[in-house]
């Protein structure tokens, strides 16, 4: 074991700070305050960019999250390599009609480059810091998406990667990690067991764990979702944000992004309510919000939404508190509902999301039907991962189609029988009461 590297504040306008006791620690691979043991967060000197950072200067930047580089914890000389982020923000008219919203938008990180989840953003920032600290081996504890993102970007940067995952992870997420040449270690336990082990490994090995000892830097990458939402809405803030919650970090960082833009005069201030989405089988943060707590009772996860299956969320207390402060709410949905959410989003908007996105979509439906989100309020729903990674969730959902002989007459007979509406023929209801 050797002492970790540091880099000097003189070259940067940010440093680690404890949110509990206010002590600052410069820049080093450290996730908890040595004095009060609370999580550390990156604090910025926004005055260092005030006036220099404008809507125009940002818009002149690259079409990636690195257009906001001045607001990210990377050394000034950092040269971004990959065009991560700047994913589409799309109006969701069809889904909105289905759910009862006239003003619904989707932030689509299912198409984030390079590995199709928002984790590409956080890993970019974490690995920039891993390099600044001189780590040559990096790792993470992961429910899948983070494993993919870390493995891919480590490969590109020439860093060795050792990635720990729960043994029941979806096959696609395992393969999408191994293909990059990373060492993947399956741990016989749930994510919380994996996470604790990684904390111990980071304590003993001189490795940069993106979500352990590099976590304060890593987490800042999530802010770029918020910056992009504000810019893509035409430099304004939405009324509501609906966000999936696992560790509870992303939802807070979107708010931090909005607050920084307000502080810099880039957007007008307004109240934004934050809504958290979890699967009922692992819903410690939603449970806390519903009870008005800012303490988390850990849970043993039991859901197919494995990317959200964190029973002891690191930022859970802070997320629960923040949601309540903004007048928002948190909801949780069953595995059946989340699969319907995946399908509705795909059928209505042409976006195939993973289980976490199904949770977020189903929770948005619930919030609209409860009246917690108003029909005309501008609401942004964060879709954070791609459905190609969790096709198991839809296994058996679609019957294998009959193989038609390659003859026009056979095709004609077949298509008229299965799609009569295409030929102006009214379909007979399949069941009493009708399917539609």
């Amino acid at each position, binding site marked *: 074991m050797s002492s970790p590297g540091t880099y000097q504040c003189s070259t940067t306008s940010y440093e680690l700070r404890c949110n509990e006791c206010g002590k600052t620690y410069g820049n080093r691979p450290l996730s908890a305050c040595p004095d009060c043991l609370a999580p550390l967060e990156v604090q910025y000197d926004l005055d260092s960019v005030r006036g220099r950072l404008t809507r125009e200067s940002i818009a002149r930047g690259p079409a990636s999250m690195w257009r906001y580089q001045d607001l990210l914890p990377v050394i000034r000389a950092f040269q971004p390599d990959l065009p991560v982020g700047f994913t589409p923000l799309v109006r969701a008219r069809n889904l909105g009609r289905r759910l009862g919203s006239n003003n619904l938008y989707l932030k689509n990180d299912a198409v984030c480059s390079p590995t199709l989840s928002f984790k590409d953003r956080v890993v970019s920032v974490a690995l920039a810091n891993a390099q600044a600290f001189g780590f040559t081996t990096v790792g993470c504890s992961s429910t899948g998406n983070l494993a993919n993102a870390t493995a891919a970007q480590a490969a590109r940067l020439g860093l060795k990667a050792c990635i720990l995952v729960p043994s029941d992870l979806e096959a696609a997420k395992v393969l999408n990690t191994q293909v990059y040449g990373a060492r993947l270690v399956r741990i016989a336990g749930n994510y919380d067991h994996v996470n604790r082990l990684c904390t111990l490994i980071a304590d003993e090995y001189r490795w940069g764990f993106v979500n352990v000892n590099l976590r304060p830097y890593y987490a800042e990458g999530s802010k770029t979702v918020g910056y992009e939402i504000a810019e893509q809405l035409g430099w304004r803030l939405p009324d509501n944000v609906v966000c999936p919650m696992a560790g509870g970090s992303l939802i807070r960082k979107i708010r931090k992004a909005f607050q920084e833009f307000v502080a810099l005069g880039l957007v007008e201030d307004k109240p934004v309510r934050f809504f958290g989405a979890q699967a009922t089988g692992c819903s410690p943060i939603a449970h806390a919000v519903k009870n008005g707590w800012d303490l988390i009772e850990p849970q043993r996860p039991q859901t197919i939404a494995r990317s959200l299956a964190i029973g002891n969320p*690191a930022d859970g207390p802070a997320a629960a508190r923040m949601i309540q402060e903004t007048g928002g709410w948190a909801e949780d949905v069953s595995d059946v509902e989340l699969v319907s959410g995946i399908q509705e989003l795909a059928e209505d908007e042409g976006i195939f999301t993973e289980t976490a996105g199904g949770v977020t979509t189903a929770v948005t439906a619930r919030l609209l039907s409860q009246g917690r989100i108003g029909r005309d309020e501008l609401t942004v729903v964060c879709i954070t991962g791609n459905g190609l990674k969790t096709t198991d969730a839809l296994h058996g959902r679609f019957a294998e189609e009959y193989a038609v002989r390659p003859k026009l007459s056979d095709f004609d007979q077949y298509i008229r029988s299965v799609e009569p509406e295409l030929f102006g023929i009214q379909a007979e209801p399949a069941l009493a009461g009708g399917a539609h």
Partner: protein
Amino acid sequence: MSIRIVLPTALARHTEGQKSFESQAQDLPGLLAEFELRYPALAQNVKDTNGKLRRFVNVYVNDEDIRFLGGEDHRFADGDEVMLIPSIAGGC
């Protein structure tokens, strides 16, 4: 009865670098009282102003979170390994 306490580096600075040692504590309040006598700086580091364990410290008994076992009411058994980890990170 004896249990084994395991500490990470961040807390071992208060125990002259010892990351593992034996204890006779019967439960979590007993363990904190023992810290007070043997390693006052450690006790100060892990306890809040009310004398309770800080909310950022996680306690595991043989790999299980003590909150699943009854928290402060849980009685340790002979040979248990009790691990204290500050502010579990991870997650998204």
